[in-house]
């Protein structure tokens, strides 16, 4: 009962959020039901391919939510969120790798295939514990969070902001990509981690597992949305927005700006890590390509197109752009990057508040006319 009133209070005055949550809840019901219980011959059948695809989009939406919290609300234009996402993904990947056990090509009960291939005889120390699901999930969030904390603590204390911060974060994700490409790192190098078999005992390839994963991802997205919304509405959220708009004013009012920025950044990285961990079971692979600097820039584009500083705008942007990407790359793969770049320029020039801002402006105009 109390949790119900909490949700109502959190969503007060947030029409977009209410619609979003309704849609998400509905898809959590529709996707599995129409996938599992409607026969394949029926027009209403939703293929496993679609379930997986939209499951992926939900992970991206979670990632966009994370970036929006940092960028839209605190003004930290992070061009390194891909790194937090990928680190979370590696956390899940390591767990799934250990779950393969002796079913790998080389049949080694302890070592993953790529380690046997490299003639390693024992498991590197940092792979210990990853056979435990809880521990692996904790790490998937904790490691990105720790990285964000160390980075934020140093950067915000030295008052690194704006373009410099963005560029350093690009460099960070690039450096991590190069590091993870190396075989000696013990994360599968170039090939990354793949060939997963099952997750907490359930076969990853089965339709039911996929549907359940989809529902879990959807529910986590809803939960994180409510959580972010609650944060944004609290005094903390208002302080953060004020830091974005008038940093020195807040400093002179007496707020320790660096502590607030670090907190938001860490929170954002945690969410990005969770998104990465959820993403890996859907796609079945995690490799250093996820650290590519371009990925981090794409996240920014999702949020910009959807509408910055509205949480549901970020979610909408992530899903729309990725759907367009799937469609486009199937028909005209070589045009996609141009289309994305063009879209970004168009949105920046003509829709500075993104699609969500555009729609609310239109609504405002209609109301004035009426």
């Amino acid at each position, binding site marked *: 009962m109390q949790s119900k009133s909490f949700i109502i209070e959190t969503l007060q005055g947030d029409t977009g959020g209410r619609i979003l949550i309704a849609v998400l809840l509905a898809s959590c019901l529709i996707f599995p039901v129409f996938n599992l219980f409607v026969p394949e011959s029926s027009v209403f059948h939703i293929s496993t391919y679609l379930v997986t695809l939209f499951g992926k989009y939900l992970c991206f939406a979670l990632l966009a939510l994370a970036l929006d919290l940092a960028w839209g609300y605190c003004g930290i234009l992070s061009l390194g969120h891909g790194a937090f996402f990928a680190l979370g993904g590696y956390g899940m990947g390591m767990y799934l790798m250990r779950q393969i056990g002796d079913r790998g090509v080389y049949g080694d009960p302890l070592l993953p295939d790529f380690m046997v291939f490299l003639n390693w005889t024992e498991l590197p120390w940092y792979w210990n514990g990853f056979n435990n699901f809880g521990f692996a999930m904790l790490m998937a969030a904790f490691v990105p969070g720790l990285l964000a904390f160390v980075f934020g603590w140093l950067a915000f204390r030295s008052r690194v902001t704006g373009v410099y911060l963005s560029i350093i974060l690009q460099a960070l994700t690039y450096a991590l990509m190069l590091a993870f490409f190396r075989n000696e790192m013990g994360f599968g190098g170039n090939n990354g981690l793949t060939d997963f078999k099952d997750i907490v005992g359930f076969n990853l390839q089965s339709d039911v597992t996929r549907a359940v994963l989809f529902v879990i991802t959807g529910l986590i997205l809803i939960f994180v949305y409510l959580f972010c919304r609650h944060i944004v509405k*609290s005094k903390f959220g208002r302080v953060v927005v004020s830091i974005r708009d*008038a940093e020195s004013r807040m400093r002179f009012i007496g*707020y320790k700006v660096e502590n607030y920025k670090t907190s938001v950044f860490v929170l954002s990285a945690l969410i990005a890590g969770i998104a990465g961990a959820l993403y890996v079971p859907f796609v079945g692979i995690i490799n250093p390509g996820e650290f590519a600097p371009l990925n981090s820039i794409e996240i920014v584009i999702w949020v910009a197109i959807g509408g910055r500083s509205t949480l549901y705008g970020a979610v909408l942007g992530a899903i729309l752009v990725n759907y367009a990407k799937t469609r486009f790359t199937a028909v005209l793969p070589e045009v996609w990057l141009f289309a994305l770049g063009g879209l970004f320029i168009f949105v920046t020039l003509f829709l500075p508040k993104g699609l969500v801002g555009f729609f609310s402006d239109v609504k405002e105009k209609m109301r004035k006319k009426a």
Partner: protein
Amino acid sequence: MSRFSKMFEGWRGERQWSAFSPEINSREFIDLSHGTLLYLENITVSFDGFKALDKLDLYIDKGELRCIIGANGAGKTTMMDVVTGKLRPDSGTAFLGQTVNLLNMSESEISEVGIGRKFQKPTVLENFSVFDNLELSLHADRSVKAALFARLTGEQRDRIEEVLEIIGLKTERERIAGNLSHGQKQWLEIGILLIQDPYLLLVDEPVAGMTVQETERTAELLTSLAGERSVVVVEHDMEFVRSIANIVTVLHQGSVLAEGTMNEIQEDPKVKEVYLGSTESSS
């Protein structure tokens, strides 16, 4: 050497190590037994050889309303930067009361200990209502944890109402600060300072761009604040300075040229010489 130390100037983290020395940067330690609130002694600040402040000595008494005038580049804003912790002077000392050394505190700590600053350009939290502006500025725990779980108490609500009354924005409380008029923003910013219960208010050009009526109201507001707290006003508008100040300090090339009542200042031969009679023409 100076180049080398400049390199680390942006590295604010070093100040944290002052935690090893005894902490006397909280309000309880302020000692005003001598009646003087702010001591600035021998302060020198130079930018690439240009001395913005040159061995400046300035004392502000408890409850005083002091106006500081001076031409552009006389060091008025630099002086405020030093007091609020934005700038570290090359040499000199700055104390609040007898005990609190301002020179090893950060901006937020200085604000916490009771020095509020109004910027030249009105700077309010544009996205929030007048009420929210004051709520966020309330003298309260500034930590992240406290902000996450903060709820307004009745006492705090009363305090906000009180300040709304003082700055004359009671009817505007729900308006978004960004939509206020220029004068109202200035008042709101004064309210933002006021609600932190500061000992010292530093006010940079409060009446720039204001209408005559607004200027009058601001003068009333500032004079009513002095007494309980000290107010330092930097202003170009001589008419305004004459209307509010008992004592005026004239800054010139980074140090104090003259100090006294407005009439004394205008008769001062040094001031006349520097200003070539410009103070007379504008009064």
